[in-house]
């Protein structure tokens, strides 16, 4: 499982930009590692995370302004395998995934897409199982950059810089320690898009507190993802993470 799962879902779509409050002097702010480690602790603890080796999440996808609704199923497994299928009805299915080496997206609407370069690095990061425990490996730098307000509550803004690609900023509620907002620059051949996502409705699943609602905004579009169920450590069919033939054909090139 991964709180960084948020990144993966926002790749599909959606920008409520909340104003930053005045940043405090760096000396007044807790260190990033303190905030990130606290997150693991308040959501269940390292042991609870490590107990799980794969995850199936099911939920819904909605772009209310356009009246578009769909279902979403996501499979994830150690160390960085993933497969997500979003069924958007008449728009068709949007599939994306990785076997840990090849990162891809496939839809009837846009065709097959092999993720490369910084886009691949971003997908790899998002696909890492239990990324919360591995932030020291995944990011070359993490620093607390200020205090922001989300829904009227203060949160610590932590900037995480990966080895490749642009930094990600995540905001952690001062009181609860839960991550409530994430801002990132989505990389794709369609250009760079700033994405703001808000995580709410934290509830325990498999011993770990997980956000069940994600609201993202990108390029004027708002997307709401609601998770209805999580299943852990089941036998996921071996071919779930297999690279589709259309993508294999592109890899061979």
């Amino acid at each position, binding site marked *: 499982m991964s709180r960084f799962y948020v990144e993966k879902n926002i790749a599909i779509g959606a920008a409520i930009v909340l104003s930053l409050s005045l940043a405090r002097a760096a000396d007044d702010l807790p260190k990033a590692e303190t905030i990130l480690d606290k997150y693991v602790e308040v959501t269940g603890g390292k042991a609870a995370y490590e107990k799980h080796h794969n995850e199936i999440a099911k939920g819904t996808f909605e772009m209310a302004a356009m009246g578009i609704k769909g279902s979403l199923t996501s499979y994830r497994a150690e160390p960085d395998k993933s497969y997500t299928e979003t069924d958007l009805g*008449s728009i068709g299915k949007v599939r994306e995934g990785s076997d840990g080496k090849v990162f891809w997206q496939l839809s009837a*609407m846009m*065709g097959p*897409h092999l993720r490369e370069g910084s886009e691949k690095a971003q997908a790899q990061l998002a696909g890492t199982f239990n990324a919360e425990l591995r932030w020291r490996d995944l990011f070359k730098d993490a620093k607390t950059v200020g205090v922001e307000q989300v829904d009227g509550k203060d949160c610590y803004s932590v900037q995480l810089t990966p080895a490749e690609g642009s930094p990600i900023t995540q905001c952690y509620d001062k009181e609860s320690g839960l991550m409530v907002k994430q801002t990132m620059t989505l990389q794709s*051949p*369609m250009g760079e*898009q700033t994405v703001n996502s808000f995580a709410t409705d934290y509830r325990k699943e498999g011993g770990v507190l997980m956000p069940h609602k994600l609201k993202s905004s990108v390029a004027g579009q708002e997307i709401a993802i609601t998770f209805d169920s999580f299943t852990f450590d089941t036998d996921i069919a071996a071919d779930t993470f297999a690279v589709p033939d259309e993508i294999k054909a592109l890899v061979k090139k």
Partner: protein
Amino acid sequence: MRLSSGAILAAALCGWSLAQPALTPAERQLNVDSFEQVWKTVRDKHWDPKLNGVDWQAVHDELRPRIEAAASMQEARDIMSEMLKRLKQTHFGIVPGEAYKELKQKDDNGKSNPSDGDPGLDVRLVDGHALVTFVTPGSPAAAKGVKLGWEILRIDGKELAPGLAKVRAALGSAMLAELIETRSVIERMEGPIDETVEIEFLDGNDRKVTLTLGRTGPRGTETVFGSLPPLHFWVDAHKLQPDIGYIHFNMFFEPEAVEAAMKKTVAECRDCKGFIIDLRGNPGGVGGMAMGLAGWFTRQSGLVLGTMYLRGASIKFAVFPRPNPFDGPLAILVDGCSASTSEIFAGGMQDLKRAHVFGTRTAAAALPSMFTKLPNGDGFQYAIANYISEGGKPLEGIGVTPDREVKLTRHQLLEGQDPVLDAAVSWIHGQ
């Protein structure tokens, strides 16, 4: 979506002559509220924060006293329309509430629902004349022997020419005019399946023929996309000749159906001399499908059809190459009823020099726009983004100019010819 907007605009034009009753204080307030909603929406949603250089606050302050004093619905609409005209951009407009009613009840009896059925005819305006360009096989029109090239003179006793002239006069030379005029004719033929429509034609011998035609359900299968009303989608893909692949679909919806048709046709067409994509009459739909369709015709990664500019964001219409794409000559057929995603695809492929475009200039209606209802019951259309094709030109207001302009003629239609398709076939064979 364009189809709907064209229909609404066409109906709107019909509504302009309605008498205007005096307004109650509540209605006046609703007009003021509508004015404010329009003004704020443009301020907040227009892709250009500078609003095309217009001092929007000054426009508000100038017109607000006038909307407060507006004595009729028409006067209120005129004031809101004047505000939008200051932007000097298309796809911003006020649609009278009567227009929505007009679409739902075609005549005074209020019995018709234009989405129920049609006699099985497609029509294009050629030099101001409504000519039959397609007769659906097995339809009531086919059963009664309606032929290509026949001109439609009257529908249910009402002469067509004066109405078309009125629409044309109101729209001027705007490229969208052809789309709106065409839709206005088609909608007059639509109605309940259990009712008939009487159409007077000018046949191939220039004789007036009046036929009473039944109606059949719209061609294709029903599809639902978001908040739009149900639409009917069809796709027709086959080998046009032993050596040319051909695909024609009526809207950019149902991506999986289009993908399946493309997959089959491209696979069967490995040795074809060329491929034709027929976008005539296609009003657009899901913009992303332009990218997916382009991917069937290139092996090159990194290509872009164009860029959509929203406020604070831009989206490139990137092309994702399919495995084993078709490498031969590609012809795209368009006309004045090809709009939106059709223009994005045709214009982009033309700019990339991957396709040769045949037909007449497209509708020039490529701004992504939205419709919303105002407090006073009127409709409000507003664009949310600008779109620039890869060649650097905006499609909005300009459209796609074919590499080879080919116009339909009544004579050729009566002969059973399709000069646009014929030109594309000839070009492919010459490659």
